[in-house]
């Protein structure tokens, strides 16, 4: 606290004194103690992302037949065979995790939420659609989100602002960005400190905004004395959010990021929001592209993307049914052995996943690409949607997490919990946890097959 006060007092004096620019040596002392500064030679940032699609797949057509490396591409993962402009195929960057289950421990399997909430929070819901614990991305963001301008970035290509994928504790949703254009403005709008735009001049208003935040923190302190425990928790969250914005402003005051790959994202093409599958795919691509520039400039280290809602509303133009309806209504084709119309959406979803992964390989970073310094967990809410299956929830991990994990592996979880994957992810991201999940979902054994 003392440091913060001194810094502000000094800057206020500087600004009031009419000094228009501040040299970098002075700025060094503004950086917080959390290592925000990315000095020359510092390690590249490590990022975590989560990506989901709704309504699962056909287990026998989706999972590779053999484990380890060198597996044949299964029918429904054909999109991973895509050749990349940077060399190799998408599959070279992706590990497939099959055979990881949600274990209900006697609790009901709420259609679509049982599998999703258990997998992303490590706790089986007792009420339909109700999140008690934070999702994996929020857990990680609460640890590393303070180092960047944005604690995390939540995105969705469902076109619906009310459907969230990321949750804080006690069921508070992190509302997703649904418009790529809005996300562009948020990240690369006037506040973005462009490293290629000449000498950095901090905006004096940034300090003044900090003074506003000090006042509302005092408001919050006074209000917290008048409320019960229910609201006390909500005001704590408010306080944390104010602190996060203070940190964002600190980052802005520190000037442009010192990262070789950082450049302002180019203006995006036209967006077209909606649940027609072509619309969702386009949004997913635009978001991924934008995100890759944001990550290269270290604007955030945590992100999430919902390609389709758990009750997937994806649809084909001219069809009277949506993806979710089809998974239940469409009869299994007796000759093919699967639901052909519903399965088309599985192919579309896997293509969208490949699009997302590919976008992160498009920016070179260090000796490889941005993706090498990421860990992206892709998964669905369910396995076989027709029966709301939660055995063998489809999961994939893309990236090398800065050399901490190896891609290209197929792991069979042999009917262990999906929370093992969540535990592994947290450990790779540097969180000090020995176990994760509650009751039947408590996991202590990381997925060692993908660890380096």
């Amino acid at each position, binding site marked *: 606290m003392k440091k913060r006060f001194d810094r502000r007092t000094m800057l*206020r004096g500087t600004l009031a004194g009419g000094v228009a620019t501040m040299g970098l040596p002075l700025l060094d002392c503004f950086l917080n103690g959390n290592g925000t500064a990315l000095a020359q030679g510092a390690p590249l940032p490590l990022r975590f992302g989560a990506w989901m699609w709704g309504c699962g797949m056909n287990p026998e057509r989706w999972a590779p037949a053999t484990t380890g490396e060198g597996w044949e591409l299964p029918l429904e993962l054909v999109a991973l065979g895509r050749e990349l402009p940077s060399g190799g195929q998408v599959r070279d960057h992706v590990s497939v995790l099959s055979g990881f289950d949600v274990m209900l421990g006697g609790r*009901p*399997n*709420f*259609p679509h939420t049982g599998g999703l909430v258990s997998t992303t929070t490590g706790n089986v*819901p007792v*009420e339909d659609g109700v999140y*008690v*614990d934070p999702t994996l991305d929020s857990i990680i963001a609460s640890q590393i*989100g303070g180092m960047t301008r*944005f*604690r*995390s970035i*939540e995105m969705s290509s469902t*076109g619906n602002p*009310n459907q969230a994928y990321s949750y*804080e504790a006690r069921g*508070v*949703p*992190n*509302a997703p960005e649904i418009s790529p254009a*809005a996300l562009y403005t948020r990240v690369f709008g006037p506040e973005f400190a462009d490293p290629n735009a000449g000498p950095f001049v901090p905006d004096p208003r940034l300090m*003044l*905004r900090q*003074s*506003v935040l000090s*006042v*509302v923190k005092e*408001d919050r302190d*006074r209000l917290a004395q*008048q*409320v*019960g*425990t*229910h*609201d*006390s928790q*909500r*005001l704590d*969250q*408010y306080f*944390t*959010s104010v602190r*996060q*914005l203070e940190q964002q402003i600190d980052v802005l005051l520190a000037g442009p990021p010192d990262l070789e790959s950082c450049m302002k994202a180019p203006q995006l093409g036209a967006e077209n929001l*909606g*649940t027609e599958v072509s619309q969702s795919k386009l949004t997913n691509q635009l978001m991924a592209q934008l995100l890759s520039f944001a990550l290269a400039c270290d604007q955030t280290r945590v992100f999430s993307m919902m390609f389709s809602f758990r009750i997937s509303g994806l*649809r084909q*133009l*001219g*069809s*009277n*049914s*949506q993806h979710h309806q089809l998974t*239940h*209504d*469409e009869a299994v084709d007796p000759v093919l052995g699967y639901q052909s119309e519903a399965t088309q959406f599985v192919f579309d979803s896997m293509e969208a996943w490949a699009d997302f992964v590919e976008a992160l390989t498009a920016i070179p970073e260090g000796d490889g690409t941005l993706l090498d310094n990421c860990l992206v967990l892709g998964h669905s809410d369910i396995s076989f949607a027709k*029966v709301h299956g939660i055995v063998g929830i489809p999961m994939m991990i893309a990236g090398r997490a800065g050399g901490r994990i190896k891609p290209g592996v197929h792991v069979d979880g042999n009917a262990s919990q999906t929370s093992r994957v969540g535990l592994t992810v947290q450990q790779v991201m540097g969180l000090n946890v020995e176990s994760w999940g*509650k*009751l039947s979902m408590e996991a202590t054994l990381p997925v060692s097959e993908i660890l380096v």
Partner: protein
Amino acid sequence: MAALLAGTIVGCSGSIGDGSGSDGPAVDAGPVALRRLTTEQYSYSIHDVLGEDITVPSRIDPDDRRSGLIAVGSTFAGVTSSGFEKYEAAAATIAEQALDADHRAELVPCEPASTSSGDDACARQFIEQVGRRLFRRSLSQGEIDARVDVARNAAQVLGDFYEGLELALSSLLVSPNFLFRVERAEPDPNDSERQRLTATSIASRLSFLSWNTTPDDELLEVAESGELLDPDVLAAQVDRLVASPRAEIGLRALFSDVYDFKQFDDGLVRKDATLFPAYTQTIAEDAKEQTLRTIVAHLTSGGDYRDLFTTRKTFLTRNLGLVYRVPVVATDGWEAHTFDEDSPRAGLLSHVSTMALHSHTGRSSATLRGKFVREVLLCQDIPTPPANVDFSIVEDTTGELRTARERLELHVTNDACAGCHSLMDPIGLAFENFDAIGAFREQENGVTIDASGELDGVSFDGPIGVGEALRDHPELGPCLVRTLFRYSLGRDATEDEWPLLDFLGERFAESEFRVSDLVRDIVLSDGFLTTSGPREAATVEGEQ
């Protein structure tokens, strides 16, 4: 549009003035909690306090809907990091407009000594005046002083008095005292066992219930003087607010929330463009507006709530006329319309809005429509389907089963489905003449639609009949009582409050189901005026 209600209210009898302090049976009321402003309340508050023509950024976190109401969700909604970031950006945009050269004269009650530097005295006046409306109470000295400091420093750095005020105004707009409606309890001097809401908390509850916005000066005045705790003064204020043309805003907010009409605003009532080429976002928005106009016109003229489900009177635009296949003279805007006696249209459930909202993108849904009637209009719970149910036989449209009725009848022959679907499908099937956008059709897949149905022992044929059966259903009135009570308080009724709900239901029936009387009765009840104290965190199941 909003007819004055004064006439309907003056004649209302009640136990006001008997000194008991509230109406109806004494009950142990439930707890209070902070209520995050809804996006609409945020916007109305800004417009009322800072100016009608201020553009309020739409980039605010969406409302949280729980137990079927945004009003209930608001007592759970939090301020996340990205949510706060949006509030802060919105505050800056709003403050800049509010203090620009066009607006400052109206908002700043004094002239600064110099426009290029701070002026504590003038800043203080501005902060006190605007802050009181935004926080819905007078600010403490500490709250004012801190903001005078902000204004002074900012004016000094930026060399502009009004830019200094912008920062001070921002600090009000991102404060938890603005973003959350604070409802506080204090010991009831008449009964040491009980807690009542403070006068300013009552004023806020009343104002947001009636007008969906921050209290006006008169209401704040009587609250801060303590007069509002006098039941006669409170009754007079209720009458004033409910009789105001602004009560229309309150009614719109109530029914938009109950019917989840925000989906139209968000562009989420989507239809397949090749199957329904006539359907556009303009039609969707008009459809919502049609229903709200119908409700407001009917209720503000003192109409019986139940008649909303049978009335043939409505309002149409030329766009809607195309869907309803009736001529609309007005080329631009709305005109009153009464559906013909031989038209299949009568009541809200024959509107495009309700029919399109409770359909899929590509086809109608008797089940969703029946569910809406049961859950929202009759307050009855329908359990979620079992996880491992096989729907394929029910929804196969390619084979022999050509109508929704043929497909849904299979529900009833399947034990796992029958229990719940027999509650929903017989209601919804009566609406099958309305397709996924609410347009009338005689046939589905070449077969003439059989629109017979049944609701709790009353049989009917088609939408007119189901509207009449619903109008006379004994649960229709009590359900609105329960919903309006939950909407007012931001929580479900506690078991101790059930006798109060019964009482309110009887009064509602006695008043011939006049919603303005129900609002008044709720405000004057123990449920509204007293509380068990602040809400404590639930011990959530699932926690270890």
